[in-house]
């Protein structure tokens, strides 16, 4: 019996058709995976379902009853619950407060806290989602926060649970915990829509897979009948080949960190006494769950923060006061984690973003003041051609570029000066397959030319296939480097959760 029926949903934004005549159904007790690349229309569809957008055409019904379009309130009332990729929790409120937030009558005289607590505890027990109701959300780990998000949705008596990329922030072990929870939920008769682009997870957890490409459904298959290659092809539209690492002998040491610590506003340091070596012709991968100090390491190597102690050496020379300009002038190519937030200024033109790191160089400006716009435009046209940036031209606003083309623009800026060290922080996050292959090929080509590359990623598969060496980051500390093939995904997953292979015991951390 289907609890959710999506019929012929069509939605366009201007000339872009985000959803093209999409029909789906979800049965009670079923996990339906929604697979698709960035921009395939997954989020638009879920936003229509959840009432954030109104569809141009089509209808949605729950338990046979038509859902009024464009009303989030009605969707929640009908039992649709959504767990967003970026949690929507207030850190300074308790778990209980977060869960009941928005469910109470605004004009009620008093809160029924004990009733809420009883309901929460009953639910937590029923679904095996243990939480402490009175602890502040700010003190919870990422996995626990996700549990609170799920409870928040269940508290509103959801019967259709939508999870948007729920595993992006979890360790492999936490992911297994989440999957166990999902199984329990479906056993109780809930329907789950699981949005993801990670094929192995979809194969592990779902009953059926619906694949979206360019706004349209390219197929709905039973998971038992599916395999990786088939799903990937349905998602991308053609056979997927990613570049492979070719053996190369490592060269001289390019970057060396010795005993580096970086302190933040937290009681524990962001980076704690780390040692790291990156050689020419070598890609070193940093694995780890998001928020374990990767950002601090990236800011350090981007020149944004200074180490509290320890030394950073480039080509054997210790760096003093680091700044972004210094790093660029020393031949460091930097690919930032979030291209929208810190990679480009979206409202500025393509050519302006290409020159942003070299504004005061003699090629770009007279006397570090007067911008040589004709020269900059010519150079931009060259790089657009060379790096295959699809845009209307140098004068186009950068925010109008697709994610992949924006990343190519950043690659052009970072790599065109032929850097000897490259910091690539999540360089393929959110890109489609074609762009991923392009970025990875460029990185491998830079390695071939002799650059040393530090690749920070949350995607273990990517790291395993691209890196000569891996280190695992946990609570601001780095493991000893190892060759990816020498460990299994499970072993690396344990290291990401804080276990140390040398002792076999959980590392004792001050938190």
């Amino acid at each position, binding site marked *: 019996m289907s609890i959710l029926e999506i019929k012929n949903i069509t939605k366009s934004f201007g000339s872009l058709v985000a959803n093209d005549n999409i029909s789906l159904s979800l049965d009670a007790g079923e996990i339906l995976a929604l697979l698709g690349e960035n921009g395939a229309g997954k989020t638009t569809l879920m936003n229509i379902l959840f009432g954030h957008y*109104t569809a141009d055409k089509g209808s949605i019904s729950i338990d046979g009853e038509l859902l009024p379009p464009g009303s989030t309130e009605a969707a929640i009332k009908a039992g649709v619950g959504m767990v967003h990729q970026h949690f929507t929790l207030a850190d300074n409120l308790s778990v209980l407060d977060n869960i009941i937030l928005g469910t109470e009558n605004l004009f009620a005289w008093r809160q029924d806290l004990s009733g809420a607590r009883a309901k929460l505890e009953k639910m937590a027990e029923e679904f095996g989602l243990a939480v402490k109701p009175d602890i502040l959300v700010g003190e919870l780990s990422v996995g626990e926060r996700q549990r609170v998000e799920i409870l928040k949705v269940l508290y509103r008596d959801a019967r259709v649970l939508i999870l948007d990329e729920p595993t992006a922030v979890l360790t492999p072990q936490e992911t297994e915990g989440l999957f166990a929870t999902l199984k329990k939920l479906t056993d109780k008769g809930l329907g789950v829509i699981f949005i993801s682009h990670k094929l192995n997870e979809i194969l592990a957890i779902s009953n059926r897979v619906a694949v979206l490409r360019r706004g349209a459904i390219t197929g709905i298959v039973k998971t038992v009948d599916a395999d990786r290659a088939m799903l990937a092809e349905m998602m991308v539209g053609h056979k997927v080949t990613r570049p492979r690492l070719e053996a190369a002998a490592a060269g001289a040491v390019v970057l060396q960190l010795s005993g580096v610590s970086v302190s933040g506003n937290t009681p524990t340091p962001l980076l704690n006494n780390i040692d790291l070596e990156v050689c020419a012709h070598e890609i070193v991968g940093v694995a780890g769950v998001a928020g374990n100090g990767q950002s601090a390491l990236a800011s350090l190597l*981007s020149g*944004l923060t200074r180490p509290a102690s320890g030394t950073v050496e480039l080509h054997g020379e210790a760096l003093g006061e680091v*700044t972004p300009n210094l790093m660029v002038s020393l031949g460091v190519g930097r690919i*930032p984690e979030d291209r929208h937030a810190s990679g480009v*200024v979206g409202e500025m033109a393509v050519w302006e973003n290409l020159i942003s790191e070299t504004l*005061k160089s003699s090629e770009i400006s007279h006397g570090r003041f*007067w911008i040589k716009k004709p020269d900059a435009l010519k150079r931009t046209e060259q790089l657009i051609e060379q790096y295959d940036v699809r845009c209307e031209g140098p004068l186009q606003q950068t925010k109008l570029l697709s994610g992949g083309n924006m990343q190519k623009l950043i690659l052009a800026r970072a790599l065109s000066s032929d850097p000897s060290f490259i910091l690539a922080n999540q360089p393929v996050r959110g890109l489609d397959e074609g762009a991923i292959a392009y970025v990875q090929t460029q990185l491998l080509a830079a390695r071939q030319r002799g650059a040393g590359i530090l690749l920070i990623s949350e995607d273990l598969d990517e790291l395993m296939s691209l890196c000569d060496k891996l280190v695992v980051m946990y609570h601001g500390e780095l493991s000893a480097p190892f060759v990816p093939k020498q460990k299994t995904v499970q072993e690396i997953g344990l290291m990401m959760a804080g276990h140390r292979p040398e002792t076999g015991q959980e590392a004792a951390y001050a938190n």
Partner: protein
Amino acid sequence: MQIEPRANVSVLRAGLAPIIAVLAALVLCSVLIVWAGAPVLESYFLLFKGALGSRFALTETITRSIPLMFTGLAAAIAFRAKFYNIGAEGQLYCGALAATYFGTGLVVLPALLMVPFLMIVGALAGGLILIIPVLLKTHMKVDEVVTTLLLNFIILLLVSFLIEGPWKDPMAMGWPQAASIIDEGVLPLLMSKGRLHAGLLFALAAAFLVWVMMRFTVWGYEIKAVGLNAKAAEFAGIRINSTIIRTAMISGGLAGLAGVSEVAGLKGYLTLDISPGFGYTGIAVAMLAQLHPLAVIPAALFLSAVYVGADAMSRAVAIPTYIADVLVGVSVLCVLISVMLTKFKIRWR
């Protein structure tokens, strides 16, 4: 109601938007005129005539737009860097103070040098007073809206103290005003009749120079980048704090020039009422101009016309001059809304 971005914005739509907005503001304000018991069309005709209808009216409108151009530029450039300088009023008085201090006999230069000299010291005074709020912002994250705003009152009280006390002109028959600017320092009149003075040329030149700076130089690039996305600017190696401090100096300097131009051009001496809120109206000018330096010129002329015309209107029919403030406020709101509507469309259902 849903708001969706438009795929592309046509030039026609972008150009028409402010005009339609101003018309809408006139329609909205006609309600107030009816309320005041005056005929709407005649009132607007009188407003128009009072602002532009004669040679005298026209020169008055232009004269009054000069300080608005300076303060409008001051707000526009600061807002571009997301430095919300609300203190142009105070910086204007700082410029006026500097012009008075140096221009009433302390320094005597030939006219060709004296006028630029007063402009420079006025700009310096206006810029330097911003040092306090800007350093509080860059180093201690103190909100500049509060500090620049409150600084206005401190400076106004200082001016009041000076012209009631140590700087009071003994020849002024007891009026609270400072001594006159020496003849060499007075901005020449541009026309034999009327009050239009050479401050206009300085204002137009300032608008042009700010435009050139924003469009063609590294400084302008840095201001735009810091304002639009400080994180990306910092990542690219632009020094955020230096950029904000430099922008604040330029902004305060421009506001200071407004003070010099009023003291050395229009009045000839410092009083406590050289500015009826030019610093604050400058913010409206900048908003109307959508922070574009050249668009500040027509925006300042428009607001000046509204104020001058409203004076004339209120003399002719019994409507309070406050209608001008309302009209300016409604115009700014309408323009902001119309600009949003050129970029987004609203869907009702």
